[in-house]
């Protein structure tokens, strides 16, 4: 059972202008795995997420989720196929309440008949109540229930990151892509986040792919790590192996100690 990958990504890539942002990217994730994707800024990590979630269309290769091809599907179809993501630069619906943010994601699995909504049929009222109940349950993952009615934009930064994860979970994904969930957290919060990520994986029985800058966090929780540099996979393997890989040390670990400066420059570099 576990031999067949849940998510199989074979040789995807994209060029922007003449520049290969990502090329020859392979990733096979078994069910309930927790993998990491690391690399220096501008290495193409977020671009990989954008390729998987259909924001960009891959120009080569193929992606399969439980054997079903994902290539060419628009982003919303990929989400309903079972891949959810968070965003590096938080993209909550700021004017909507915390609860509504989660309900929006939750309703993906509901029928949402528009005629039913307009006549307020029993089925649609029941559905709405179920969406609300489930959303409130999900907010408990991060103790956000108490703030359910506040506008999302009024949450503190850390809570916004958590809400992004809750929102992604609400789409009932099979694979969850987390883009720098620990950004801006202190070490205590990071340790808590590591536990939460494991707990999410176990409770929701998901495969999780994590982009993260904090090496300690990645090494601690990820079973396998893929390292990107300039869009090319330079190493892939369990954390112990990655830690001693000379190419990785050269490309990544050597510059990893001034994170603050990197984050500044990442905005432009990552999106070329």
């Amino acid at each position, binding site marked *: 059972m576990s031999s067949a990958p849940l998510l199989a990504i074979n040789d995807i890539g994209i060029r922007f202008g003449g520049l290969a942002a990502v090329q020859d990217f392979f990733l096979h994730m078994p069910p309930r795995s927790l993998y990491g994707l690391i690399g220096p800024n501008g290495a193409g990590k977020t671009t990989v997420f*954008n390729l998987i979630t259909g924001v960009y269309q891959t120009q080569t290769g193929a992606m399969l989720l439980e054997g079903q091809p994902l290539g060419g599907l628009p982003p919303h179809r990929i989400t309903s196929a079972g891949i959810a993501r968070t*965003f590096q630069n938080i993209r909550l619906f700021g004017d909507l309440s915390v609860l509504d943010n989660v309900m929006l994601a939750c309703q993906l699995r509901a029928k949402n008949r528009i005629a039913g909504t307009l006549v307020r049929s029993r089925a649609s009222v029941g559905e709405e109540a179920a969406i609300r109940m489930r959303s409130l349950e999900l907010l408990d993952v991060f103790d956000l229930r108490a703030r359910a009615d506040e506008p999302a934009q009024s949450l503190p930064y850390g809570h916004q990151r958590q809400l992004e994860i809750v929102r992604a979970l609400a789409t009932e994904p099979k694979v969850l892509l987390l883009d720098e969930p620990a950004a801006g957290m202190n070490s205590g919060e990071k340790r808590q986040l590591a536990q939460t990520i494991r707990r999410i994986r176990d409770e929701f029985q998901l495969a999780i792919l994590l982009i993260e800058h904090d090496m300690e966090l990645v090494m601690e929780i990820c079973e396998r790590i893929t390292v990107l540099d300039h869009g090319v996979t330079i190493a892939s393997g369990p954390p112990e192996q990655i830690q001693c890989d000379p190419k990785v040390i050269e490309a990544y670990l050597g510059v990893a100690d001034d994170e603050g400066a990197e984050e500044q420059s990442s905005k432009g570099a990552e*999106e070329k």
Partner: protein
Amino acid sequence: MAEFLQTVETSLAVGALYALIALGYTMVYGILKFINFAHSDIVVLGAWISLRIATEVLPKLGIDPRAAPWWAGGAVLLASMAACSIIGFVIERTCYKPLRRAPRLNVLITAIGVSLLLQNLGQLDLFFGTQPARMPSLLPNTPLVQWEFGTEGASRRLVIGLVDVVIFLTAGTLMVLLELLVYRSKLGAAMRAVSFNTETASLMGINVDRIVSLTFMIGSALAAAAGFLYAMKYPGLNQPAHTIWVLLGLKAFVAAVIGGIGNVRGAVIGGFVIAAVEQFGAFYISSNYRDFYVFVLLILMLLVRPTGLLGSTVKVKV
């Protein structure tokens, strides 16, 4: 053949007018990213101020507007441009500057408010009133060139009038000056920097407020010139709130979009394209639908290449 050339000639003159107006739309959009709906009203002001100067100021100076010396027209033009650029400056400072950080829709509504204000102030008897008026012809509209085509009996004439030539040359000169200003001067570099990224530009020490004001003043001056030239070509001026002005502005705006809104050269090309489509459509298909061709072209353009002929595509960041 004669009809064809005549249509080309009209297209060039009308196109120059559209281009002048389109420049104002495109410059404001380039820098502040909003559609300045009040721009067409500046054209109206330009035309009516010219008329007032010609009918009231010139006689006081002892100049008969119907037999004015050659420089009188130029003086009226410059006076009108100066007046409108001051008005443009005041509007920008009072109505748009406080909204620099507001949602663009709000700025748009404010522009509509300004437009309504100008139209209705203009209708007051204190200013221009609600009656149409006739612009004195500062130029004798003598045909410069007359060519006969075809055989006798079925001959057609091609007439190139002085007014059209003056329109084309004046507009052309202004556009060349603007081109030099935007692409060849330090000030132009600052304008382009603000248009590209306002925040970075201000970090680089550019005084953004001054550049924005300047943009409005230049745009308004060009609009005033267009208004003056329009009054030369079509001396029967409608009252300031007439739909004909709104349509003139709308079509010039379409020209800016077709050329690629935010792009100065695009606006000029767009102006001539719109005029050609309108004039040729009116002459060869049916003049009832002249507005129709322009807006259909707009829709087609938006569907095929929404950023216009010379516009660049902006990649959405994720």
